[in-house]
């Protein structure tokens, strides 16, 4: 079942149409990577899901209930992590989380336990230090704590890893992966390797619509541009090899790049046999896998 559904959602800013009929679903329990260029409308989409931005037309459903602008009851089952979370600097993390917990309706007995657990998870000290002295990374970690505090069914993260150092980023991604199954996660990012690392589904937002929306494996097959790269000892041999291998290949200095479709095993065997028959021995042979970056480039081209 889909926990989040968008149906033909449109949004204009002035006379610029940012979203031109965005439609997609996010299945419960999955991790959905939401990618797109700057100003493609990712943040706008997320704000609309949270009821922070008006919807010009179309509808958004969370767990089957329609989202209305400014109406916040559905929000109780949603966690939100903005790119740069803003807090009351005069509070301590514990005080801030208490306020958040109270607002989401967590019972008094539960709350203090949960806050301490959460602060431990995100590795923030439990003391009297106020938030105004926090670094950006610490604020981001507090952001994670507040977003997960109410055990949300749906977690929405807007470029969550942008402020984190490599270790923090890796830990954060692990944390997200560990939530898989209980919490549905939608996260937007520019860092495609992050998406490849943890996402089940990828949506590529381009030109106001979702250009691609599928599991990463399916996308890879769909947009597969499989290549084998051979390297030869000299440019001459490379040129000869390219001639023998036909129009699917081209040479580039000492390299020969062969485009293929179908099963690698079979293709590689045939190609190697052909080369051997002509006594052309490559010094290296590499199978190039399609990555998300290639897919992204192709979709948004």
């Amino acid at each position, binding site marked *: 079942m889909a926990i989040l559904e968008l149906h033909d959602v449109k949004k204009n800013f002035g006379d610029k149409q940012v979203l031109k009929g965005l439609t997609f679903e996010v299945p419960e329990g999955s991790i959905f990577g939401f990618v797109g260029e700057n100003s493609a409308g990712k943040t706008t989409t997320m704000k609309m899901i*949270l*009821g*922070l*931005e008006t919807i010009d037309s179309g509808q958004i459903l969370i767990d089957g209930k329609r989202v209305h602008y*400014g109406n*916040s*009851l559905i*929000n*109780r089952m*949603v966690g*939100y992590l*903005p790119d740069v*979370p*803003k*807090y*009351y600097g*005069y*509070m301590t993390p514990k*005080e801030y989380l208490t*306020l*958040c917990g*109270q*607002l*989401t*309706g967590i019972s008094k007995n539960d709350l203090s336990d949960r806050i301490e657990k959460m602060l431990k998870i995100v590795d923030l000290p439990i003391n009297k230090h106020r938030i105004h002295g926090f670094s950006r990374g610490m604020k981001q970690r507090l952001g994670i704590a*507040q977003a997960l505090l*109410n055990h949300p069914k749906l977690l929405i993260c807007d470029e969550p890893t942008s402020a984190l150092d490599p270790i923090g980023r890796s830990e954060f991604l692990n944390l997200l992966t560990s939530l898989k199954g209980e919490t549905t996660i939608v996260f937007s990012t520019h860092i495609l390797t992050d998406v490849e690392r943890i996402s089940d589904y990828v949506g590529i937002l381009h030109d106001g619509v979702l250009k691609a929306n599928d599991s990463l494996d399916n996308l890879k097959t769909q947009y597969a541009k499989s290549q084998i790269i051979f390297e030869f000892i000299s440019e001459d041999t490379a040129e000869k090899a390219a001639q023998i291998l036909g129009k699917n290949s081209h040479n580039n200095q000492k390299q020969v790049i062969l485009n293929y479709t179908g099963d690698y095993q079979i293709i590689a065997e045939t190609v190697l046999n052909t080369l051997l028959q002509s006594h052309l021995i490559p010094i290296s042979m590499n199978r190039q896998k399609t990555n998300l970056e290639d897919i992204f480039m192709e979709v948004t081209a």
Partner: protein
Amino acid sequence: MKSTWFFIRKELLESWRNYHLLIIMIVFVIFGIEGPLMAKLTPDILKMASGSGFSIKMPDPTSIDSWQQYYKNMTQIGIYVLVVIFSGTVSGEVSQGTLVNLVTKGLPRYSVIVAKYIVTYLQWCLAIITSFLISWGYTAYYFPDNKTPNIWLGLWPLLIFGLMFVAITILGSTLSTNNYGGFLISVIVFIGLTLLNLFKDSKRYNPIALVTDNMSLVKGTEKISHIMPAIWITIFSALVIFYLSILLLRRKKL
């Protein structure tokens, strides 16, 4: 309703930790001490200033002068001090984006206005009453006369005026995107009401009567029933303006 209560506690903590409460207390304690003292010292100061060459006949100061000082302070600079402190209450949160997180946690937007209104009004009352009590004490000490029989009667209108003026400040703060906008709107309204007072016929109905007629009430030369229409209009306007702020924030982008 629970959310409003949690947000009220947040507002109180904010006022305490950001030193708003402290500033208000210091300023209004000074006002409280200053009023009676000025009334007491004014003749001496004038005497010193005019030199010993000739003497002016000055009537001895009374409790009327003392209370006059108090109401002058409260209804002029006092109100502006409060507005300066409160005018960023909504606009500050909107421009910094601190509300986003709480609203997405399920905080209803009306709670923000309700809580801010209550806490701001409490501070208004605290400021004015603190100053009043100090002023009362010193006045009784310096001027033990009976020329000001209705001491409390002057205070009520001022507190009721606060109901409306706090609402205006919050509306101004919701309308504007920075502190100055909120401040400007409140000041313009105040000046507008004062100008309206130039029309003699409107005086009984103008909310400004609540902060201009205090001395007549204290002296007993005017009955509260005279400004009753203005009081009702003030309360009614407060409700309308308060509700407008709620509507406005509901539509505001956070």
